[in-house]
């Protein structure tokens, strides 16, 4: 099953959505390096530590992180954007 490969394009496109700039430190979505080529991903549901809360890409046709993710681990859910790695 598909796994996050740590490319971090989700962070880049998310920060672009919020600020029209590339600034992973403020993205709603964050990739965590677990070592040995494994990654976990978290999505902020509130503004915290300079990170901007996820607004499910309000104003866009479709959430950008989902469109860009090359392994398709980011999903739509009733709770908003979620990352599922089985």
């Amino acid at each position, binding site marked *: 099953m598909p796994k996050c490969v740590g*490319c971090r394009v989700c962070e880049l496109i998310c920060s672009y959505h919020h600020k029209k*700039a*590339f600034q992973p430190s403020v993205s709603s979505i964050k990739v965590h390096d677990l070592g040995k080529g*494994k990654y976990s991903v978290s999505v902020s549901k509130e503004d915290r530590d300079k990170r901007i809360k996820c607004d499910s890409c309000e104003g866009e046709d479709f959430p950008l992180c989902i469109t860009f993710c*090359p392994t398709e681990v980011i999903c739509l859910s009733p709770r908003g954007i979620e990352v599922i790695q089985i």
Partner: protein
Amino acid sequence: MKTWAPIKLVGKTLRVDLSDEKIEVTKEGAGAYKNFLGGKGINQYFLYKEVKPDTKPLDPDNLLIIGAGLLTGTLIPGATRTSFDTKNVFNGGVGSANVGGNFAPGLKFAGFGNVIIKGKAEKPIYIWIENGSVEIRDAGKIWGKGTLETTKWICEDVGEEGVQIASIGPAGENLVRGACIMVNGTRAAAKCGVGAVAGSKNLKAIAVKGSKAVEVAEPERFMELAKRAWRKIRFSRTTKIIRAGRTFSTLEAKNAICNMPQRNFQDGYMDPEKVRMVNSEAFAKYEISKFACFSCPVWCRAYYKVEDGPYAGIEGEAVEMNSIADFASKLDIPYAPAVIKAHLMCNYYGMDIDAAAGAIAWAFEAYEKGVLTKKDTDGLELKWGNHDVLMKLLKKMAYRESFGNLLAEGSYWASRKVGKESEEYAITMKKQDLYEEVRVPKGWALGVALSTRGGGHCSGAPLVEREKFPSGVAEKIYGVETTTDPTTYKGKAKLVVFHERFHNVLHSTGICLYTSAWVYPDWLNPDDIAELVSAATGLEITSEELLKIGERIHNLERAFNALHAGFDRKDDYLPERFFKEPIKSGPYKGEKLDRKKFDKMLDENYRIHGWDEKGIPKRETLKRLGLGYVAKDLERAGIIR
């Protein structure tokens, strides 16, 4: 309303003088990017301007320059690479090493594009860059440690996660000629002895973390183009192949054109049985995960673990095409766990695998011929296929221990010490050890011969001589009628000229060769990149103009080599073995290089470049490229009249 300024993409320039402990931040990059883009281009611009010809590579006055590509930090697929530029430790000419991983994005998010390091610290230090603040910190506790351990220690020392760290290991500290710089202990800025230059400065590492923004001039246009580029790479045929089999997906195809350095280039063909033991399928057994560099959908990296056999318990990120060529073919060790082990050892010590295998394979052949005996080799029997001996020699080499001290010089300098005709099988270009076999694909041969940094296949060598494309593709992408017959000399000089310029564009924009049309025509080509650069910078730049920047950088390097190393046509010839000894087996048995035809390729390459018959850039060529000051230097040195 925010306005864009070039510095928001290019990044500031950081100057560190380790002798005086002086730190200076400038905006010089913003003045240089129009002519040199970023990354290697801007680095070489500073290197040429500020290092004198009589400075030696390990002198404090030599500069070590780090450059993030112009487009790194944005989401262009594969735009993640860092260039390290300095005087070449093997030959005193151009030194340039390129690396993936995530170091350059780290530098850009901290607000920097280039770091220029001069001088020598009194004792081991590392440089810590966090957003605008720069510190020189004590590295006494990690001097002597391997690169992975260094990475972990520095993260703790600065108390942060997600730090990008470029460090040297024992090889750099011991000034081994082939010492490299490792990013986070696993990705190598491998060539030209950049690790030894850092070691000579008592510079253990550069660590960086940032939370700033990278911005482009025309965000909406840029995003449309980036989306297209992302889709182009993500859904391409080549991406599927590389994802599955990594950078050695094409191992069988490479062997099919007898392009393997079998037993120190005694042959170019590897027994297919042996190839099967070290191909993508063979390594997949040991793979724990596949993953990617920053902003890349190809995910060509992998983490391995070995559970059985003599190397049970080893694990780490390792293995590229070069590792298989260097260890499985050049040393005739077709055993996957040994390839993983040797690669991990070189990561730890911070040593270029090409340089390590080059020196060791030379020694194996010298031993085979009786020129070296057990008396010379610390009692070790240097027999082809002996991986136990390989691991022992890697360690001796990294520490310049006993016989390792000779190996640490690289095969060119080692063979000059030993003599007894061992110079004949020191397979080097401009004194740096080669990984590239060259007898069959003539364009590849020419590109390797002309490479400004001394061998290597990422400064002019084409990769496309072995596959058929639909008609018109070769013309459209590479500017030549056809690329598909490896053995023909026709058209290859022009093919190499294209690659010499295109590679410089890639090294300066920070785009990885593994999302570029160097690998295959369905990947990013000069038109794609010209559009991206235009939208990123607001400059309207065509692909011709982009390749002209590549040409400018190339001429600058050629002049640097002439002034600093005395290089000209005589240094563009591959080792005699490739002209005298034919391939012994396989589909291209009997093939070798023809000296007259090679000479004609050199003549044509020089002519297209606007160089004289010695391969020196002509005055009018340099002036056309805005390098009038370079022409004056060459005149003053009596190199052009």
